Protein backbone atom coordinates (compact mmCIF):
# COMPACT_ATOMS: atom_id res chain seq x y z
CA UNK A 1 0.00 0.00 0.00
CA UNK A 2 1.50 3.30 -1.17
CA UNK A 3 4.76 1.50 -1.83
CA UNK A 4 4.97 -0.16 1.59
CA UNK A 5 4.52 -3.86 2.28
CA UNK A 6 1.41 -4.41 4.37
CA UNK A 7 0.48 -7.66 6.08
CA UNK A 8 -3.14 -8.66 6.42
CA UNK A 9 -4.41 -10.82 9.28
CA UNK A 10 -6.54 -12.89 6.92
CA UNK A 11 -8.67 -12.56 3.78
CA UNK A 12 -9.71 -8.95 3.46
CA UNK A 13 -11.55 -6.61 1.16
CA UNK A 14 -10.21 -3.23 0.15
CA UNK A 15 -12.60 -1.42 2.46
CA UNK A 16 -11.19 -3.27 5.49
CA UNK A 17 -7.62 -2.35 4.72
CA UNK A 18 -8.58 1.27 4.09
CA UNK A 19 -10.53 1.49 7.34
CA UNK A 20 -7.53 0.10 9.22
CA UNK A 21 -5.62 3.06 7.79
CA UNK A 22 -8.19 5.65 8.75
CA UNK A 23 -9.93 5.96 5.40
CA UNK A 24 -13.65 5.30 5.16
CA UNK A 25 -16.29 5.69 2.46
CA UNK A 26 -16.95 9.12 4.00
CA UNK A 27 -13.39 10.35 3.57
CA UNK A 28 -13.43 13.15 1.03
CA UNK A 29 -10.76 14.05 -1.47
CA UNK A 30 -9.18 10.61 -1.68
CA UNK A 31 -9.07 8.00 -4.43
CA UNK A 32 -7.82 4.45 -4.57
CA UNK A 33 -6.31 2.29 -7.30
CA UNK A 34 -5.60 -1.42 -7.10
CA UNK A 35 -3.03 -2.66 -9.62
CA UNK A 36 -3.42 0.57 -11.64
CA UNK A 37 -7.22 0.38 -11.80
CA UNK A 38 -9.18 3.11 -10.05
CA UNK A 39 -11.75 1.61 -7.69
CA UNK A 40 -14.77 3.90 -7.13
CA UNK A 41 -15.60 4.18 -3.44
CA UNK A 42 -18.93 2.42 -4.02
CA UNK A 43 -16.93 -0.68 -4.98
CA UNK A 44 -14.42 -0.65 -2.13
CA UNK A 45 -16.28 -3.42 -0.32
CA UNK A 46 -16.39 -5.65 -3.42
CA UNK A 47 -12.66 -5.87 -4.06
CA UNK A 48 -10.99 -8.86 -2.40
CA UNK A 49 -7.30 -8.32 -1.91
CA UNK A 50 -4.75 -10.88 -3.03
CA UNK A 51 -1.10 -11.35 -2.20
CA UNK A 52 1.04 -8.88 -4.15
CA UNK A 53 -1.74 -6.41 -4.99
CA UNK A 54 -0.45 -2.90 -5.37
CA UNK A 55 -2.68 -0.32 -3.75
CA UNK A 56 -2.35 3.41 -4.24
CA UNK A 57 -4.27 5.88 -2.11
CA UNK A 58 -3.99 9.52 -3.17
CA UNK A 59 -5.24 12.94 -2.21
CA UNK A 60 -4.79 16.50 -3.42
CA UNK A 61 -1.68 18.43 -2.45
CA UNK A 62 -0.15 21.76 -3.41
CA UNK A 63 0.62 21.87 -7.12
CA UNK A 64 1.35 24.17 -10.02
Amino acid at each position, binding site marked *: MNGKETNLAGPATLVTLLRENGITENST*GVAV*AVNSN*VIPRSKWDEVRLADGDKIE*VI*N*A*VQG*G
Partner: protein
Amino acid sequence: MNDTMHDPLVIAGREFKSRLIVGTSRYPDPHVMLDALAASGTELVTVSVRRVNLTDGSRESFLAMLRGKYSILPNTAGCYTAKEAVLTAQLAREALDTNWVKLEVIGDQETLFPDVPELLKAAEQLLADGFVVLPYCNDDPITCRKLADMGCAAVMPLGAPIGSGMGIRNPYNLRIIREQCRVPLIIDAGVGTASDAAVAMELGIDGVLLNTAIAQAKHPVQMATAMRLAAEAGRLAYNAGRIPKRLYATASSPEEDMIGSDD
Protein backbone atom coordinates in the same frame (compact mmCIF):
# COMPACT_ATOMS: atom_id res chain seq x y z
CA MET B 1 -14.97 45.20 -28.54
CA ASN B 2 -17.03 47.83 -26.77
CA ASP B 3 -17.88 46.04 -23.56
CA THR B 4 -14.57 45.78 -21.76
CA MET B 5 -16.24 44.49 -18.62
CA HIS B 6 -17.63 41.30 -20.12
CA ASP B 7 -14.76 39.52 -21.82
CA PRO B 8 -14.60 36.15 -20.11
CA LEU B 9 -12.18 33.34 -20.68
CA VAL B 10 -14.26 30.42 -21.91
CA ILE B 11 -12.92 26.88 -21.64
CA ALA B 12 -15.12 23.92 -22.49
CA GLY B 13 -18.20 26.12 -22.20
CA ARG B 14 -17.30 27.42 -18.74
CA GLU B 15 -16.81 31.13 -18.26
CA PHE B 16 -14.09 32.59 -16.09
CA LYS B 17 -13.93 36.31 -15.35
CA SER B 18 -10.21 36.04 -14.63
CA ARG B 19 -7.71 35.07 -17.29
CA LEU B 20 -5.30 33.73 -14.69
CA ILE B 21 -5.05 30.13 -13.55
CA VAL B 22 -2.92 30.01 -10.42
CA GLY B 23 -0.98 27.22 -8.75
CA THR B 24 -1.13 26.40 -5.06
CA SER B 25 2.49 25.36 -4.50
CA ARG B 26 5.60 26.94 -2.97
CA TYR B 27 3.97 29.75 -0.95
CA PRO B 28 5.58 30.70 2.37
CA ASP B 29 2.48 29.43 4.20
CA PRO B 30 -1.20 28.59 3.55
CA HIS B 31 -2.43 32.02 4.66
CA VAL B 32 -0.22 33.79 2.15
CA MET B 33 -1.44 31.32 -0.47
CA LEU B 34 -5.08 32.13 0.22
CA ASP B 35 -4.45 35.88 0.25
CA ALA B 36 -2.44 35.68 -2.95
CA LEU B 37 -5.08 33.58 -4.72
CA ALA B 38 -7.72 36.11 -3.69
CA ALA B 39 -5.56 39.05 -4.85
CA SER B 40 -4.94 37.41 -8.23
CA GLY B 41 -8.67 37.26 -8.93
CA THR B 42 -8.36 33.71 -10.22
CA GLU B 43 -11.29 31.31 -10.16
CA LEU B 44 -9.37 28.19 -11.18
CA VAL B 45 -6.45 26.80 -9.20
CA THR B 46 -4.17 23.85 -9.84
CA VAL B 47 -3.39 21.05 -7.41
CA SER B 48 -1.33 17.86 -7.61
CA VAL B 49 -2.27 14.39 -6.47
CA ARG B 50 0.11 12.40 -4.32
CA ARG B 51 0.03 9.40 -2.04
CA VAL B 52 -1.93 9.96 1.14
CA ASN B 53 0.18 10.25 4.26
CA LEU B 54 -1.48 7.42 6.14
CA THR B 55 -0.04 8.45 9.49
CA ASP B 56 -1.21 12.06 9.24
CA GLY B 57 -4.86 12.76 10.03
CA SER B 58 -4.75 16.33 8.68
CA ARG B 59 -4.89 15.29 5.05
CA GLU B 60 -8.20 16.90 4.18
CA SER B 61 -7.25 20.38 5.35
CA PHE B 62 -5.48 21.53 2.18
CA LEU B 63 -8.38 20.81 -0.12
CA ALA B 64 -10.86 22.20 2.40
CA MET B 65 -9.13 25.58 2.17
CA LEU B 66 -9.86 25.79 -1.55
CA ARG B 67 -13.24 24.10 -1.85
CA GLY B 68 -16.18 26.41 -2.37
CA LYS B 69 -13.91 29.29 -3.33
CA TYR B 70 -12.16 27.96 -6.41
CA SER B 71 -12.64 25.46 -9.17
CA ILE B 72 -9.97 22.80 -8.90
CA LEU B 73 -7.74 21.80 -11.80
CA PRO B 74 -5.69 18.73 -10.92
CA ASN B 75 -2.38 18.25 -12.71
CA THR B 76 -0.37 15.19 -13.61
CA ALA B 77 2.93 16.80 -12.62
CA GLY B 78 5.78 14.39 -12.11
CA CYS B 79 4.47 11.85 -14.62
CA TYR B 80 6.97 10.65 -17.20
CA THR B 81 4.80 8.27 -19.19
CA ALA B 82 1.33 8.33 -20.70
CA LYS B 83 0.40 5.38 -18.49
CA GLU B 84 1.31 7.21 -15.27
CA ALA B 85 -0.42 10.39 -16.41
CA VAL B 86 -3.65 8.61 -17.36
CA LEU B 87 -3.86 6.79 -14.02
CA THR B 88 -3.06 10.00 -12.14
CA ALA B 89 -5.81 11.84 -14.01
CA GLN B 90 -8.29 9.04 -13.31
CA LEU B 91 -7.42 9.09 -9.61
CA ALA B 92 -7.77 12.88 -9.54
CA ARG B 93 -11.18 12.63 -11.18
CA GLU B 94 -12.33 10.17 -8.54
CA ALA B 95 -10.88 12.16 -5.63
CA LEU B 96 -11.81 15.66 -6.72
CA ASP B 97 -15.03 15.19 -8.63
CA THR B 98 -13.81 16.89 -11.77
CA ASN B 99 -13.11 15.56 -15.23
CA TRP B 100 -10.79 18.48 -15.98
CA VAL B 101 -7.08 17.78 -16.02
CA LYS B 102 -3.95 19.80 -16.60
CA LEU B 103 -2.04 17.12 -18.47
CA GLU B 104 1.71 17.13 -17.94
CA VAL B 105 3.96 14.39 -19.23
CA ILE B 106 7.51 15.38 -18.48
CA GLY B 107 10.54 14.43 -20.56
CA ASP B 108 13.33 15.01 -18.07
CA GLN B 109 13.88 16.37 -14.62
CA GLU B 110 16.32 19.11 -15.52
CA THR B 111 14.27 20.96 -18.13
CA LEU B 112 10.79 19.67 -17.25
CA PHE B 113 10.04 19.98 -20.95
CA PRO B 114 7.16 17.85 -22.17
CA ASP B 115 7.65 14.42 -23.71
CA VAL B 116 5.57 15.05 -26.81
CA PRO B 117 4.91 11.48 -28.03
CA GLU B 118 3.81 10.42 -24.53
CA LEU B 119 1.78 13.62 -24.14
CA LEU B 120 -0.13 13.00 -27.37
CA LYS B 121 -0.78 9.40 -26.37
CA ALA B 122 -2.04 10.41 -22.92
CA ALA B 123 -4.22 13.18 -24.37
CA GLU B 124 -5.84 10.75 -26.79
CA GLN B 125 -6.61 8.22 -24.06
CA LEU B 126 -7.97 10.81 -21.64
CA LEU B 127 -10.16 12.41 -24.30
CA ALA B 128 -11.57 8.98 -25.14
CA ASP B 129 -12.25 8.54 -21.42
CA GLY B 130 -14.32 11.73 -21.27
CA PHE B 131 -11.81 14.13 -19.76
CA VAL B 132 -11.57 17.85 -20.43
CA VAL B 133 -7.88 17.92 -21.28
CA LEU B 134 -5.67 21.00 -20.90
CA PRO B 135 -2.21 19.89 -21.98
CA TYR B 136 1.05 21.58 -20.97
CA CYS B 137 3.09 21.46 -24.17
CA ASN B 138 5.98 22.96 -26.10
CA ASP B 139 5.65 26.25 -27.93
CA ASP B 140 5.65 24.19 -31.12
CA PRO B 141 2.87 25.04 -33.57
CA ILE B 142 2.60 21.48 -34.88
CA THR B 143 2.23 19.90 -31.44
CA CYS B 144 -0.27 22.56 -30.43
CA ARG B 145 -2.30 22.02 -33.58
CA LYS B 146 -2.33 18.26 -33.09
CA LEU B 147 -3.56 18.65 -29.51
CA ALA B 148 -6.25 21.11 -30.58
CA ASP B 149 -7.38 18.91 -33.49
CA MET B 150 -7.55 15.92 -31.18
CA GLY B 151 -10.16 17.71 -29.08
CA CYS B 152 -8.26 19.27 -26.18
CA ALA B 153 -10.36 22.01 -24.56
CA ALA B 154 -7.36 24.36 -24.47
CA VAL B 155 -3.73 24.16 -25.41
CA MET B 156 -1.12 25.36 -22.93
CA PRO B 157 2.28 26.05 -24.49
CA LEU B 158 5.10 27.00 -22.17
CA GLY B 159 6.51 30.52 -22.24
CA ALA B 160 9.80 29.27 -20.77
CA PRO B 161 10.80 26.34 -18.55
CA ILE B 162 8.65 25.70 -15.46
CA GLY B 163 9.73 27.90 -12.55
CA SER B 164 12.39 29.66 -14.63
CA GLY B 165 10.79 33.11 -14.64
CA MET B 166 12.29 33.67 -18.10
CA GLY B 167 9.07 35.10 -19.53
CA ILE B 168 7.86 34.65 -23.09
CA ARG B 169 10.91 33.33 -24.90
CA ASN B 170 9.36 32.72 -28.29
CA PRO B 171 6.65 35.26 -29.08
CA TYR B 172 6.96 34.52 -32.80
CA ASN B 173 5.99 30.87 -32.39
CA LEU B 174 3.15 31.92 -30.11
CA ARG B 175 1.84 34.24 -32.83
CA ILE B 176 1.83 31.32 -35.26
CA ILE B 177 0.14 29.08 -32.69
CA ARG B 178 -2.45 31.82 -32.08
CA GLU B 179 -3.23 32.01 -35.79
CA GLN B 180 -3.44 28.26 -36.23
CA CYS B 181 -5.32 27.13 -33.11
CA ARG B 182 -8.95 27.99 -32.63
CA VAL B 183 -9.12 26.62 -29.08
CA PRO B 184 -8.21 28.77 -26.05
CA LEU B 185 -4.47 29.19 -25.56
CA ILE B 186 -2.99 29.41 -22.10
CA ILE B 187 0.64 30.26 -21.43
CA ASP B 188 1.70 27.66 -18.91
CA ALA B 189 5.06 28.18 -17.24
CA GLY B 190 7.80 30.74 -17.59
CA VAL B 191 6.05 33.88 -16.37
CA GLY B 192 8.37 35.74 -14.00
CA THR B 193 6.81 39.14 -13.51
CA ALA B 194 3.77 41.19 -14.43
CA SER B 195 5.02 42.36 -17.83
CA ASP B 196 5.32 38.72 -18.95
CA ALA B 197 1.62 38.21 -18.32
CA ALA B 198 0.85 41.44 -20.18
CA VAL B 199 2.99 40.35 -23.14
CA ALA B 200 1.14 37.05 -23.33
CA MET B 201 -2.19 38.84 -23.34
CA GLU B 202 -1.04 41.33 -25.97
CA LEU B 203 -0.12 38.41 -28.21
CA GLY B 204 -3.75 37.33 -28.09
CA ILE B 205 -3.15 34.45 -25.72
CA ASP B 206 -6.36 33.74 -23.80
CA GLY B 207 -4.97 33.03 -20.36
CA VAL B 208 -1.90 32.59 -18.21
CA LEU B 209 -1.20 29.75 -15.80
CA LEU B 210 1.39 30.67 -13.21
CA ASN B 211 2.57 29.69 -9.78
CA THR B 212 6.21 30.31 -8.85
CA ALA B 213 6.21 33.94 -10.02
CA ILE B 214 3.63 34.71 -7.35
CA ALA B 215 4.46 32.15 -4.68
CA GLN B 216 8.18 32.85 -4.58
CA ALA B 217 8.01 36.63 -5.03
CA LYS B 218 9.28 38.62 -2.07
CA HIS B 219 5.70 39.77 -1.52
CA PRO B 220 3.38 37.16 -3.05
CA VAL B 221 0.14 39.06 -2.44
CA GLN B 222 1.48 42.20 -4.10
CA MET B 223 2.75 40.16 -7.04
CA ALA B 224 -0.63 38.44 -7.35
CA THR B 225 -2.26 41.87 -7.57
CA ALA B 226 0.31 42.96 -10.17
CA MET B 227 -0.45 39.83 -12.24
CA ARG B 228 -4.17 40.52 -12.12
CA LEU B 229 -3.69 44.09 -13.31
CA ALA B 230 -1.15 43.07 -15.96
CA ALA B 231 -3.46 40.42 -17.40
CA GLU B 232 -6.30 42.93 -17.50
CA ALA B 233 -4.11 45.62 -19.07
CA GLY B 234 -2.64 43.23 -21.63
CA ARG B 235 -6.04 41.91 -22.61
CA LEU B 236 -7.46 45.42 -22.97
CA ALA B 237 -4.49 46.42 -25.12
CA TYR B 238 -5.01 43.35 -27.30
CA ASN B 239 -8.68 44.12 -27.77
CA ALA B 240 -7.92 47.80 -28.35
CA GLY B 241 -5.68 46.94 -31.30
CA ARG B 242 -2.17 48.29 -31.04
CA ILE B 243 -0.59 50.60 -33.65
CA PRO B 244 1.82 49.01 -36.11
CA LYS B 245 5.52 49.32 -35.32
CA ARG B 246 7.46 51.70 -37.60
CA LEU B 247 11.17 52.28 -37.93
CA TYR B 248 10.87 56.08 -38.38
CA ALA B 249 9.09 58.78 -36.42
CA THR B 250 5.55 59.93 -37.07
CA ALA B 251 4.81 63.35 -35.55
CA SER B 252 1.89 63.37 -33.21
CA SER B 253 1.51 67.18 -33.10
CA PRO B 254 0.21 69.13 -36.14
CA GLU B 255 2.95 69.92 -38.61
CA GLU B 256 1.11 72.85 -40.24
CA ASP B 257 0.90 76.51 -39.09
CA MET B 258 4.17 76.46 -37.25
CA ILE B 259 5.41 79.90 -36.14
CA GLY B 260 8.06 81.45 -38.31
CA SER B 261 6.88 79.56 -41.43
CA ASP B 262 6.47 81.58 -44.67
CA ASP B 263 4.44 80.75 -47.78
